[in-house]
């Protein structure tokens, strides 16, 4: 099984606070992970640790058994990390692709053509002259073409227009179908709705929830509740809000019926009922 493992990982920025203390997490092949959390909880740090850009101050991070911080070429070739903010060289995407693709043995020229087409990428203009959205499209096209086993995307949809977001969703779904994994860090929770099959929610103490969408749907119930149902609740909902059409919220699912997961509501529940959610999913405090 191909995995990225965080084992009792701790990280502290030199001039900042402790981000993780004893984070333990396993990412497996063939999944689309959604990494959620408020600003500053360590989503980007977690990605950088996995990509070997940062070295943990405690514990370890391994990519398929290789220590990420060692940045062994064979391990790094299986991973592509797209940071949230980046500056690019004064090259066109085609030239950039020509000089960078040799580092990725699984790079596919056909996939590159296809991704450029789907994302409507401008290929003949220098990357540093493109707008933020166009640069993101260009790099996403390259990222998907690398064929890397692990695609770590930090806020990938920032700056993308509606059409590009739609193309991005298609490409992610296709990518994961081929047994590869995509980790998407975002705080725009709506954008990963029905795209991810596994969710990881972080808070300042560490992992609040680490579960598949199927498991979440089995354990929690999402939806709109009538006033009658509302009055019959035996326990406080994890999250509830009143709307003109009634009450919507998240409760513990006591039925056998799997509920359709609403990621935005789940995220709100993770903010309002953090410890209950943690207990429900048996997530250890970090």
């Amino acid at each position, binding site marked *: 099984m191909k995995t990225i493992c965080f084992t009792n990982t701790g990280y502290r*920025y*030199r001039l900042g606070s402790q981000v993780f203390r004893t984070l333990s997490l396993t990412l497996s092949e063939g999944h689309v992970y959604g990494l959620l959390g408020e600003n500053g909880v360590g989503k980007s740090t977690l990605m*950088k640790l996995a*990509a*070997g*850009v*940062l*070295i943990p*101050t405690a514990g370890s991070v391994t990519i398929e058994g290789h220590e990420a*911080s060692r*940045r*062994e*070429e*064979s*391990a*790094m*070739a299986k*991973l*592509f*990390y797209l*940071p949230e*903010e*980046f*500056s*690019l*060289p*004064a*090259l066109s995407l085609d*030239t950039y692709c020509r*000089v*960078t693709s*040799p*580092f*990725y043995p699984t790079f596919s020229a056909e996939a590159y053509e296809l991704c450029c087409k789907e994302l409507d990428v401008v290929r003949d203009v220098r990357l540093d002259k493109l707008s933020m959205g166009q640069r993101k499209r260009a790099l996403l096209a390259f990222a998907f073409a690398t064929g890397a086993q692990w695609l770590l995307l930090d806020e990938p949809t920032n700056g993308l227009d509606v059409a590009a977001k739609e193309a991005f969703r298609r490409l992610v779904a296709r990518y994961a179908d081929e047994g590869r994994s995509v980790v998407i860090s975002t705080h725009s929770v709506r954008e990963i709705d029905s795209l991810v099959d596994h969710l990881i929610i972080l808070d300042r103490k560490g992992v609040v929830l680490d579960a598949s969408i199927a498991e979440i749907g089995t354990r929690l119930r999402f939806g709109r509740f009538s006033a009658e149902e509302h009055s019959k609740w035996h326990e406080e909902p994890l999250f509830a809000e009143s709307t003109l059409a009634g009450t919507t919220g998240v409760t513990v699912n006591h039925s056998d019926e799997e509920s359709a997961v609403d990621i935005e509501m789940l995220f709100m529940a993770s903010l309002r009922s953090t410890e209950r959610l943690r207990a429900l999913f048996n997530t250890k405090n970090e």
Partner: protein
Amino acid sequence: MNTIIAYARKHFTEMRRNYLSTFAGLFLIALCLPLALREMLGMTSEVGGEVMMCLGWASVLILTSNAFREWYTPGYDAFCLTLPISITRRVIFLGVTSLVISILSAQLFFWATYYGWQLFAGFNCLDLQDDPMDIVLRLSLVQVVIHSLLMVCYSRGGRSRSWWLILGGLAAFYFLLNIPEMARWVSDLHTSFPNLDNQLRLLGENWSIVLHNRPLGAATEVVEVVSCASIVVAFYLSAWCGFKEREARK
């Protein structure tokens, strides 16, 4: 090996414009500075030392800065550093290429314009009492020292305070070089510390690490060469540790 070749190709493609503009700048310095100095100072010869020093500094500063751009440019570093190539290979490649290109380009531009001026304008800008090979060697040694200091700077992230490190490092370099004499391990009036005139001569017209007019192998020279080499190695080691540390804690 393939990775290094791919990395070299990537580096030079991305930095092509920077390298070309640097070479153009160095060529202009080599071409115009002798004439400018002659016009300003009224000299007809012996301005070559200053020109060469200027070329030496400029080439190392700009070319090393180009090479290590990906280590200190925010937004470019995180993106570049995830390339599947080890830190060791990357630093060695960038360090060695920036040093070699600096040395070669400074020498090339200087000697090309030196002979150019002599041939076409009859203007001899360098008093060649010294062996040209000695001049070449001395400039290269100075460039190695500057380069080692720059490596320390870039390993610290290229922040503004790192530039103070360069100045401090250079001062320390010249100071430490004189310790053998201060401690009276060796005796040589030519470089005795703290003779200001001699210090200026060390930095300026003579700017040499291995002082000439003395037989090679003399105690002073051996101690100086060993001191110099130790200092340079210490700078490079410090730079190496800095790169590793910077990787670990951004």
